[in-house]
């Protein structure tokens, strides 16, 4: 079985491009060009150069000794938190801004939830001198003030999404509407492995540098290129896609996808899409989707704004349906405790998204000699306020 996209843009039965005709020329232009552009030697050279000198790659693969002792297994942290702007998101925005330039686009739009992708997009737009408009739910603007300020400092215009539930899904709707209205000069930098084909595949390829590095770094540490387990949190699924990418076809590698259970999978306040979702269409992709029986998209909940998405990328829907990846749901409390534990044991303050991945160690036992790689997708600076409130710090 293949876990990669097929020539029609599907992962198994998931994916495709369910877009209004108004978007067809934009998406088709991208579809026809993305692989060609990504394979051009000077594109690769520029991408790799920026990842190295600007982002700070390769990010370390750090053996977490005290955490490993506590859970009696070998835990490595892939330190995406050390990237410029503090998360894996910038791997994708660097790739897409170079793509946009190759396609002759002069105006960039993006959606953002917590603001991490918005900041990463505003950053690369500043770097390239391109106009940047970021759509962000009105509610998220209020609860993520520091990231709003960052985007503004970087020269971006932040436009509140006031429709629907006024969060990430609505910000994405607004970005898509903007793209409909600006079909010629604008590129939409989507922030995860979601949206119509070819976005999930393109974003996964830009993020695949993560597992490429894991392989060579493990070789140094452990004299093997393959871990036994790779753990990553899943919002839309981009950090997971990057961490899994080069291991997808090696069934010896156990892939663990961690979703946000919010207050509990059955609490009515959750974002565990694989459990709560059914096949449906969101933002142009056929995938697992949280929705009513009548097909209206419902609002997810998680303490972590980055995992608060009612769908999941089509690659992950396929990994779930095919049984290739193991899906685990982690509650707000479990994630927060795991985050605090990493601070105490390793001196690293993780993003709350990443804390969900770390919480797996309380739920599942690994063999003492197992090599377990955790995608530490981001740093916790943006989440201080939430940590402060949660722990009464």
């Amino acid at each position, binding site marked *: 079985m293949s876990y990669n996209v097929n020539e029609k843009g599907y992962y198994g039965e998931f994916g495709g491009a*369910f877009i*209004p005709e108004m978007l*067809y020329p934009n998406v088709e232009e991208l579809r026809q060009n993305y692989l060609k552009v990504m394979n051009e030697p000077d594109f690769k050279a520029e991408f790799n150069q920026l990842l190295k000198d600007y982002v700070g790659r390769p990010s370390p693969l750090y053996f977490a000794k005290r955490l490993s002792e506590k859970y009696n297994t070998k835990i490595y942290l892939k330190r995406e938190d050390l990237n410029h702007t503090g998360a894996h998101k910038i791997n994708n925005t660097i790739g897409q801004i170079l793509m946009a330039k190759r396609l002759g686009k002069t105006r960039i739009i993006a959606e953002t939830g917590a603001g991490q992708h918005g900041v990463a997009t505003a950053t690369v737009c500043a770097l390239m001198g391109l106009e940047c408009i970021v759509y962000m739910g009105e509610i998220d603007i209020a609860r993520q003030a520091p990231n709003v300020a960052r985007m503004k400092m970087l020269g971006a215009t932040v436009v509140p999404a006031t429709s629907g539930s006024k969060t990430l899904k*609505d910000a994405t709707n607004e970005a898509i509407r903007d793209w409909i209205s600006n079909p010629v000069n604008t590129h939409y930098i989507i922030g995860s492995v979601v949206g119509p084909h070819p976005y999930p595949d393109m974003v996964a390829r830009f993020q695949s540098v993560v597992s490429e590095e894991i392989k060579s770094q493990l070789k140094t540490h452990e004299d093997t290129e393959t871990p036994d387990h790779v753990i990553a949190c899943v919002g839309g699924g981009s950090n997971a896609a990057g961490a899994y990418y080069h291991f997808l076809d090696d069934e010896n590698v156990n892939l663990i996808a961690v979703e946000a259970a919010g207050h509990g999978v059955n609490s009515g306040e959750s974002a565990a899409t694989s459990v709560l979702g059914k096949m*449906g269409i969101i933002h142009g992709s056929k995938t697992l989707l949280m929705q009513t029986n*009548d097909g209206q998209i419902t609002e997810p909940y998680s303490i972590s704004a980055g995992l608060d998405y009612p769908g999941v990328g089509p690659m992950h829907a396929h990994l779930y349906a095919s049984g290739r990846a193991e899906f685990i749901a982690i509650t707000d409390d479990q994630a927060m405790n795991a985050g605090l534990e990493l601070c105490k044991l390793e001196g690293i303050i993780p993003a709350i998204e990443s804390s969900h991945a770390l919480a797996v160690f309380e739920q599942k036992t690994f063999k003492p000699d197992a090599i377990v790689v955790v995608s530490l997708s981001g740093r916790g600076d943006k989440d201080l306020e939430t940590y402060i409130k949660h722990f009464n710090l």
Partner: protein
Amino acid sequence: MMNRIQHKLNEDKKLLSIYFTAGYPSLNDTVSIIESLENSGVDMIEIGLPFSDPLADGPTIQASSTQALKNGMTTEVLFNQLKDIRKTVSIPLIIMGYFNPMLQYGVENFCKKCHEIGIDGLIIPDLPVDVYHEEYQATFEKYGLTNVFLITPQTSDERIRYIDSVSNGFIYMVSSASTTGAKTGFGDEQLNYFKRINDMVLKNPQIVGFGISNSETFTQATTYAKGAIIGSAFIKHLNQNGISTIPNFIKSIIS
């Protein structure tokens, strides 16, 4: 056999089609709105099945959809409201909605139900023509439904020809690159585009949508096209004046 849409398209006149969101302003206005539109001289009606995330729609239709859902509109409720509609209404009726609610209802069930009620066609903005052609065309045709596709000023001639070949009613010509209700009025750019499409001599007539709000824009839009669709302007009228003044609104366009 021709259905009501195809018959209507053969009439020697410019056609006015009206879009409204089912369940808005009030849940049970659907039938009254349809009857009033027919009695006022409207040629065709697009009944909007509201969706939580209407990507191709601007603020007016978004707001009416949100309100309709709050009012309790669902696919099942709409079908119930429409079950006797053919006892009183004879003009073509089209359901316009996004694909996900239809997918959840079951595409075949949805088509079957439309056929039983006397719905003549569907407009599904996020069901791409190639997916329709490969997976659903046979089902739609089995139930005698006309599926209507959109084209825009950016659609290539080659793709327009392809869409024309798959269509069996009319082509929905989106007037400019925008969501619904964003712009009103037409400039040379749009008029040239309408003419360019007209000059392609397609098998399916074109009906213009997006940006038509009054008698002037209706006349402009139909200079080179078979008809025009009014949506957001009608919703705004309902919002401001309620459903009792529908005849006045229609008269102001086609008196």
